[in-house]
């Protein structure tokens, strides 16, 4: 159970660092840490096979979102 508290604490810390940081390119790694922490927390909260799928879906979704934000910030992909 310590694992869950530790993960939640890391999430809060990462969010605090993300909100303090002004530069977008440097905010994204902090938010990435929060996403890791939330994905881990989902499985630790509910021990069920589907919660693994939920954690994977949350993590992939948040990574896709960060990727989209970063590539738009970079100037976008020329299609």
């Amino acid at each position, binding site marked *: 159970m310590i694992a*869950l*508290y530790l993960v*939640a*604490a890391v*999430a*809060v810390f990462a*969010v*605090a660092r*993300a*909100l303090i940081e*002004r530069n*977008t390119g440097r*905010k*994204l790694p902090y*938010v990435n840490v*929060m*996403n890791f922490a*939330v994905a881990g*927390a*989902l499985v630790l*909260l*509910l021990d*069920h096979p*589907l*919660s693994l*799928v*939920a954690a994977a*879906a*949350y993590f992939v*979704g*948040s990574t*896709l*979102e*960060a990727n*989209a*934000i970063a590539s*738009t*910030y970079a100037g*976008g992909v020329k299609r």
Partner: protein
Amino acid sequence: MILALEVTFGLIALAGAVSAALIRDSYGKLISLGILVGGIVPFIVDRGYLDVAIAVSLIAPIATIFVLMAVRRDEA
């Protein structure tokens, strides 16, 4: 969920929402919305609504991508 954890994730969601309102930079706002969703999903899972959690986890990022597309069309 024990109270301390509820407060923790609630604070994360609240911080995301407040910063989305206060931050001026557009990318900062979108990132804050992502933080907001990150604070909410644990509540959904904790109650056992795993299918809802999966749906929200997939839909929210796609919504962000649509917003980015809309913003880019505005700039172009």
